[in-house]
C-alpha cells in the first residue's frame, strides 16, 4: 500500500515536471516567434497528487434524484470529476467539450468510468438545466451532472480545493481517482486535453 503510493507520487511528479518543462519551452519559443511550434503549446497543465475528504452531502442528479456524494464516488470504477456551471461562458464549455471528447475516445470503455460534473451555481442549475446541458454535450449514462444546495456545493468545492469565492473566479481542474478504497486523487490543473486525461487515467488504472 505504502509502496504503491510512493510509486504513484513519483509517476505524478515526473509527469508534472515534464509537462511544466514542455509548457515552459513552448512559452520561450513563442517569445522568439517560432510560429511552427504554435500547435505544440497544447494543454499547459499541472498535475499533482492529493487526498480529499469527501463531505457527507446529498446532491441531486439531472433526473431530480437525491443521492449521497460519497455513494457516487465509492465503488471500484475509476472516477473523472470536474466542477462546472451551465451558464458559464469561457472555461466550462471547454471543460465539458473535453469530457465529451474523453467519453468519445474511450468508446466502449467509457461505460466503466464514472464521470461526474458538479455545479458550482446550484441554485440556477436545476435538474432541468443540467439535463439540457448534458444533452448539449452528448453526455452518456456514465456521466452524471450534480446539483444541490449552495452550502453543499461549497463544501464539496472546499474539499477538493476548488473553491474560489465566486463562480466567476473558478479555475479549470480535472480530478481523477482509481476507484476502490484508495484515498489518493490526481488533480490536473488547467485546460487539460482529452488525451492527457486518458493518459493519466490509464497510468492510474495500471496500478
Amino acid at each position, binding site marked *: 500500500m505504502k509502496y504503491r503510493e510512493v510509486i504513484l507520487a513519483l509517476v505524478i511528479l515526473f509527469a508534472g515536471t515534464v509537462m511544466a518543462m514542455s509548457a515552459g519551452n513552448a512559452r520561450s519559443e513563442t517569445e522568439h516567434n517560432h510560429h511552427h511550434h504554435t500547435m505544440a503549446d497544447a*494543454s499547459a497543465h499541472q498535475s499533482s497528487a492529493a487526498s480529499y475528504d469527501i463531505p457527507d452531502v446529498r446532491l441531486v442528479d439531472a433526473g431530480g434524484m437525491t443521492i449521497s456524494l460519497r455513494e457516487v464516488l465509492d465503488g471500484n470504477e475509476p472516477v473523472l470529476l470536474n466542477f462546472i456551471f451551465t451558464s*458559464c461562458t469561457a472555461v466550462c*464549455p471547454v471543460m465539458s467539450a473535453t469530457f465529451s471528447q474523453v467519453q468519445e475516445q474511450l468508446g466502449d470503455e467509457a461505460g466503466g468510468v464514472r464521470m461526474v460534473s458538479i455545479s458550482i451555481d446550484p441554485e440556477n442549475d436545476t435538474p432541468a438545466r443540467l439535463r439540457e446541458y448534458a444533452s448539449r454535450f452528448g453526455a452518456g449514462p456514465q456521466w452524471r451532472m450534480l446539483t444541490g444546495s449552495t452550502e453543499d456545493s461549497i463544501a464539496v468545492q472546499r474539499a477538493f480545493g476548488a473553491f474560489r469565492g465566486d463562480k466567476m*473566479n473558478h*479555475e479549470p481542474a480535472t480530478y481523477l481517482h482509481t476507484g476502490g478504497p484508495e484515498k489518493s486523487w490526481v488533480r490536473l490543473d488547467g*485546460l487539460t486535453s482529452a488525451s492527457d486525461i486518458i493518459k493519466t487515467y490509464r497510468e492510474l488504472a495500471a496500478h
Partner: protein
Amino acid sequence: MLSAWLLLTALVHPAHAGVPPDDESAGKRIYREGMLPSGEPLRGTLQNGVELSGSAAACAVCHRRSGLGGGEGQNSVRPIAGRLLFAPALIQSSSDQASPAQASSARTRPRYTLDALARALRDGVDPSGRLLDALMPRYRLNDDEVRQLAAYLQQLAPRQAPGVTGSEIHFATVIAPGVKPTQEKAMLDVLQAFFAAKNGGTRQEQRRREIGRNVTGSEQMYRAYRKWQLHVWRLRGQPESWPAQLQDYYREQPVFAVLSGIAAGSWQPVHEFCERNEVPCLFPNIGFPAVAQTGYSSFYFSRGAVLEAEVLAKHLAGGVVGRDNNIVQVFRDDASGRAPAQALRAALRQRGIDTVVDRPLSGSVPVPESFWIRLLDGDRPETLILWLNDADIAKFPLQREVPLSLHGLYVSGSLVASPERLQQVGGWIGRVRCVDQLEQAGLRTQHMTRMNTWLRARNVLLADEHIQANTFFAAGIAGDALAHMDENFSRDYFIERIEHMTGQSLFHSVYPRLSLGPGQRFASKGGYVTGCMLKGGHRAALQSNWIVP
C-alpha cells in the same frame, strides 16, 4: 397604391431568400450564433485538441456580446471590439502572468489588419507573433468570412452609447400609476440621495481631468467621469398607452439605463420597452415581473409569485400532503393571478399531485365573507392556497371555527403586504403559512443597518425598508458596474458586468442571496415557507429550509 407596394417589398426584402446579407449582418451571425453564411456551423479547434462547433464555437461565448471580453479565473478574454482591435494595444496576457519573470512586462501589440485577424483566427497568433490564450480556438474561416467578421467587430462597442454625452450619463426611473405616494417617495428619495452622493463625490473630476491633461499630456485619468442625471418617467392611464409614453420620454431624453422603478400591477409594457430599445432596466420594485420568457435587457429580483408557487409545490410534495390531498387555490382571474395558479398546478402535477381545484375570482368586486364560508363548507379543502392581496382576504373568517378538514392555509408573501393582519386565533394558530422570499427578520435587520445609517446621514426618511433597500441595491450595482467599465460605455458590457457582480455586491436587498451569471435575469432563486408575521413584527418559526424549486 404603388408606394404602399414599394414599402411592402422594402420591408420584406432583407429577409428574402437568395439575397446575400451584407457583411456586417453575416459577421453578426458568425459572432453571436456560430453560424456561417453558407448555413454551416462555425468550427474551431482548441490548442488542447478539443473541437467546438456552432453556438459553442461562437465568438460571443467568451468575448460576450459587448466584444469587450472579461474572464473567468485566470483565463482572461481580450477585448476584440473594433476600435480596440484595429488599434495598437497594451497587452498583459494571462500566459504572460503565469511566468513571474514576465509579470510586469506589459507589451504593445501592433494594430490588427485584416490579414493579421485572419492569422489570429486560423493559427492563434497575434500581430506581434505571440500565441493567443489556450481558450482561443483555431477557426476554419475563409477570406470572405473573416472580412464579414471584421465588419461586425468594427462597429461593436462604440465609445458612446445612447444617454451618454462627453460630460453626463442619463438614467431614468419609471413610476406606474396607482402606486401609493409614500412608496413612490420612498424610492425617489433613495435614488436622489444616491445621485447627489455620486455627483458630490466626483464633482472635482471635471477639473482633475483638465489638470491631468495639462500635467501628463493625456486624459488617461478621470476621463470615465460623467455627471449622473436622473429622469423620472411617470406613466399615466391604462397599460396599453404606456409604450407610446415611454417611447416619447425616451425620444426626448435617451437614457443609458433605467434604474429601479415601481408599479402596483403589470410591468409588462416597461419590460417590452426595455427589450425593444435594448435599454438595461435594473431591478424594479414590482410584484409581477414579466416571467413568461427571460429577456436580455431586463433584470429582476425574482420571478415573484410564480417562484412562490414553485417553492410551495416543492414543499407540499415533499411530504406535507399526499397524492389525494384536496387542494383548492383562489386567485383573481387576470394575468397576474393566473400565473402563480398555473405554475402551482404544473409543478404539483410534475410531482405526481393532480388534485388541485381552481376557484378564480372574476371582476374586481371585494370578496365578501359569505364567499369564504361557502368555499370552506362546500369545497372542504384540506389545503387552501390564496394568490390574493390584503384587500381580497380582508374578510376571510379567521374568527370562525376552523373546518375540521383544513390542515393548512397558505398565502403569498409577495401579494400580502401585511400578513400580521391574518390574526391567528384559536384553532387557526399554526395553520396559517406564508410563502416568503425575503431575508428572515433577524438577519435582515443586520443587513439593513448600513443602508439605514447611510440614508439617515442624508436626511432621508426611513419610510419603507423593502422598497428602499431594493432601490439602494439597484443604484449601487449600477454604480459598481460603471466604475468597472472605465470609459467603455457599452450597454452590453454594463449588462455583462452586472451579471458578474450581482453575487458579490456589498449592497443588500431584502432578499437573502442574490446571484446572476451569463444570461441569468432573476437574481433570487428560492423561498421559505414560514409561519407568517405575527402581531408586533415577530415571525413564527420557519416551516421549511430555503427551497429552490
